[in-house]
């Protein structure tokens, strides 16, 4: 847990924070500090290679070889009591070292401990599925494939889970633009109307705050409404009062007259 800071006067302070500020690393401690973790690590080390292990925020982090992932998780599930895989995914370190970091967050309800098992795989390397051990890995591995393009061997249904099946690109990669590449920008147009409709429909307007009061095709000013497509000089015409019905009335419906309405202040009347 992070230390609690009082937030009574938080609104009086400036919102500005240095955008290049890098959070300092949370301090690590030795695995030997915790007897339970030390015993677990010894059991893992007896059968598998462990390249690094430490305790961070009361959780043990263990780095293993990627080909040992099923073996380590099986050992932890069947012998060490870590019966739940609460979360798993990948981290994109391609720019830094050309690798993905895969993590498995394990929970032991009996020991009340959490262990994070991590390993590095290369960009085009596949990893073995842990779905036979934990059913929760089914969708997590599909999401990992969907978002990062990490392929999982022997998964029963290796298919995209969130994005459409015909989507190109992996959106959670650091190299993927937030507003999408060209495929994403034209996806719905290409899919529904075909590429030849691109010129008619036009590119996406990404400025959602765009208002043009002289564009009477797309905008209207409340209280100053003019017909759609009217000349721009009509925009600054005189105010049109708020009216729910057209002049002359509606067939078989009484006109709503603003001055004959009564605002009820007592709701229980």
């Amino acid at each position, binding site marked *: 847990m992070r230390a609690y800071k009082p937030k009574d006067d938080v609104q009086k302070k400036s919102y500005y924070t240095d955008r290049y500020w890098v959070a300092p690393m949370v301090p690590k401690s030795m695995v030997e500090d915790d007897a339970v973790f030390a015993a677990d690590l010894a059991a893992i080390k007896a059968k598998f290679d462990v390249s690094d292990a430490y305790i961070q925020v009361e959780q043990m982090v263990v780095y293993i070889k990627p080909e040992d992932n099923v073996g380590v998780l099986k050992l932890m599930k069947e012998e060490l009591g870590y019966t739940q895989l609460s979360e798993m995914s990948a981290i994109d370190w391609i720019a830094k070292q050309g690798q993905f970091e895969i993590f498995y967050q394990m929970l032991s309800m009996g020991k009340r401990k959490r262990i994070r098992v991590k390993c590095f795989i290369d960009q085009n390397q596949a990893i073995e599925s842990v779905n036979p051990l934990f059913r929760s890995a089914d969708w997590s591995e599909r999401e990992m494939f969907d978002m990062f393009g990490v392929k999982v061997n022997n998964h029963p249904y290796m298919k995209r889970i969130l994005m*459409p099946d015909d989507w190109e690109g992996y*959106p959670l990669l650091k190299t993927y633009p937030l507003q*999408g590449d060209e495929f994403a920008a034209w996806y719905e*147009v290409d899919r529904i109307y075909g590429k030849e409709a691109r010129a008619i429909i036009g590119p*996406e307007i990404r400025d*959602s705050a765009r208002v043009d009061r002289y564009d009477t095709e797309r905008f209207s000013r409340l209280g100053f409404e003019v017909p759609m497509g009217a000349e721009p000089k009509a925009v600054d015409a005189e105010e049109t009062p708020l009216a*729910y019905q057209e002049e002359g009335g*509606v*067939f*078989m419906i009484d006109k709503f007259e603003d001055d004959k309405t009564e605002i009820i202040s007592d709701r229980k009347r």
Partner: protein
Amino acid sequence: MAQHQVNYTQDNGLPVALTTIDKVVNWGRSNSLWALTYGLACCGIEMMASGASRYDFDRYGTIFRSSPRQSELMIVAGTLTKKHAEFIKRLYDQMAEPRWVISMGSCANTGGMFNTYATVQGVDRVIPVDLYLPGCAPRPETLQYAVMMLQKKIRAEKAGKAQRPKRLL
């Protein structure tokens, strides 16, 4: 005839009202706008509140239907993702003419705060929209006002077959 409460001294002594076909048809259309339930996100909650007893859309003849075949109004309430875009087009195509679309809330109008790769930047990229309703999320009163404005728009249209079918392309 005598059982009706008709004042024979008025209206030329007959229970008759004179009007035009356009007016009668548009009166019927504008006062029985059956809406397709299209709650995609939090705006859907406001849309449900508008249909429920406190705001009571039934007063306007707006009754929510679960089938596009039975509805002529599509209230797109919420964020349209790119994955869902083809389904909204298909459901829109299944609605019978004449049909109208209200784009409810910022997300449906412009993509809103979801300036990302996965959100359609406005449903008018996929289907033609009659009325854009701003707000995040618009209150039920605002949706009522939108429906009344749409009724006003419908009553201004020609009711005959000369009306061009709406297509985006």
